[in-house]
């Protein structure tokens, strides 16, 4: 159906378009500025020059070098291993903690929550140092000087960063859950444990999942706690565990980002992009689903 627009309508429409254009321009401008460093790194991952800014011809050599660099591969492996192990353990521990605290008396729940809040607000450096001091204390007064720093101390360090966030992402799901679901499951023949699995867990799964994702992110990104609590182990063997963060930090202290790392950044970026697209698709689908549900 076609009809001519009145002057007012035209004015309104023009304003809306203007509003949209200006808004989007601002968003894109900031976005571009934000991505400059990464994009530069990606661009120069296709040339072998030591410094970015000089172009010595297009090549995939850096990618080849990357996979041949044992140092980087070990660090990468360590990073992934520690991220997976620590986040899985943290998710189980934090989820159990959240469920348990939710069904505890108000007083004990409040105590757990205030302790839980400490690592959330605490500075990473203080977390790292307090843990280290405790480990040293333990090492010199209880183990009689035997070295305690190892994969296990690193694991504890990462878990301390992660568990409070798992707790915090599971808790709202528990609050949103209809408390009668657990009772309904028992009413229909579940024992307490079965009811927990069949009624409570399916309800809080989204929270558990986002807790896991957050844990992985925190672990992958961590530098300070890793630098302080690590010891020998994992793929590094007898040497101190090197993760991507500690390796890059050691390198950039002395000079520019090593060329192979530019290739690595590109690969990470593509992986992150894929994950981001998948998350968006999943999100849009679930939004659509609930919308459909409401209409019916």
């Amino acid at each position, binding site marked *: 159906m076609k009809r001519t627009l009145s002057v007012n309508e035209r004015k309104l429409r023009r304003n809306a378009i203007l*509003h949209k254009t200006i*808004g*989007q321009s*601002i*968003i894109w401008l900031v*976005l571009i500025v*934000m*991505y400059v*460093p990464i994009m*530069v*790194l990606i661009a120069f991952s296709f040339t072998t020059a030591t*410094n*970015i800014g000089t172009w010595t011809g297009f090549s995939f050599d850096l990618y080849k070098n990357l996979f041949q660099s044992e140092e980087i591969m070990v660090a990468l492996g360590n990073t992934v291993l520690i991220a997976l192990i620590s986040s899985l353990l943290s998710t189980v*521990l934090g989820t*159990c*903690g959240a469920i*348990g*605290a*939710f*069904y505890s008396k108000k007083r*004990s729940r409040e105590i*757990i929550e205030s*302790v839980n809040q*400490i*690592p959330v*607000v605490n*500075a*990473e*450096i*203080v977390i790292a*140092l*307090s*843990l280290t*001091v405790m480990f040293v*204390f333990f090492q010199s007064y209880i183990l009689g000087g035997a070295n305690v720093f190892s994969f296990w101390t690193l694991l504890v360090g990462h*878990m*301390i960063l992660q568990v409070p966030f798992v*707790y915090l992402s599971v808790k709202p799901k528990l609050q949103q859950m209809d408390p009668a679901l657990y009772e309904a499951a028992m009413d229909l023949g579940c024992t*307490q*444990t079965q009811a*927990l699995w069949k009624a409570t867990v399916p309800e809080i799964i989204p929270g558990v999942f986002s807790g896991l994702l957050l844990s992985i992110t925190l672990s*992958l*990104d961590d530098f*300070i706690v890793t630098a302080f609590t690590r010891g020998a182990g994992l793929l590094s063997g007898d040497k101190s565990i090197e993760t*991507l*963060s500690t390796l*890059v*930090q050691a390198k*950039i*202290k002395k000079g*520019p*980002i090593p060329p192979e*790392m530019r290739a690595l*950044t590109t690969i*990470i*970026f593509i992986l*992150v992009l894929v994950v*981001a697209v998948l*998350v*968006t698709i999943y999100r849009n689908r679930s939004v659509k689903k609930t919308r459909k549900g409401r209409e019916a």
Partner: protein
Amino acid sequence: MSSAKKSRGEKNFWRTLRRIVSFKRKYLSIPYFIFLILFVLIPIIIILVYAFTKTTDAGNLVFSFDSLVEFFSSTTKLNVLVVSLFIGIINTILCLVIGYPIAYLLADKKVNKNYVMVMLFVMPMWINFVLRTGATRDVLYMIGIKGGEHPYFATLIGLVYNYLPFTILPLYTTMIKLDRSQIEAARDLGCNPVQTFTHSILPQSVPGIVSAAEMVFMPTMSSYVISDTLSEGKLTLFGNSIANSFNNSLWNDGSFMAFIMLALIFITMFITNRFSKDSGREAGRLW
């Protein structure tokens, strides 16, 4: 029918036993709580002990205010604290000034309907932050801003670049929940765009601002990798000082600075808590 024959006393006994022995969901939090005590509470207690003690020649810990005196009489350390607070405040303000309009625009259905845009802003968070920091330094170097020559400027760029996603995300979550009908009501009641903003949008987004500021301010002061890398060691933030003390085995002094850090954290937490509570009450009053 056997149970019907049980005596009253016996029944009460079973009743009590069932209350005590049966599996309870709350028991699930026990391992978690032990973990928190072992690795959160005890380490902090140890730090506090070290902060107010000194090691005698015999190797014993005795109560002392030496670290306190040492800290407050050292101009270098006080200077570092002041500079850190300053950098922290500037960075928080910059992040909010850039992040707030971006978050508002992203949440405005008339400008952006796509969640992908939000993801694009958050994505850098998932690339290793040391790598990101190194890249920023190298690019700044490439365009002629050398960290050694402009330590404050370079550090601030690095900080804003790093913390912007952390600002946008909480702000966006609050903005998306803004009560649009309240904004329209404000307009309907005769507010011009500026008044609409100050009377409706800004008060409603206070919780987001508070949590964004919380996400930025404290970590800026304590995380030293960014300042170390971008200023090429020219700028020392409070986090560096703490780490350096420990690396030089000055445990008592380091612990005392960690204690200062903890105190600052609790003060900000106290202020922000009051802030968000007040704004919550205010929002409640509207209805």
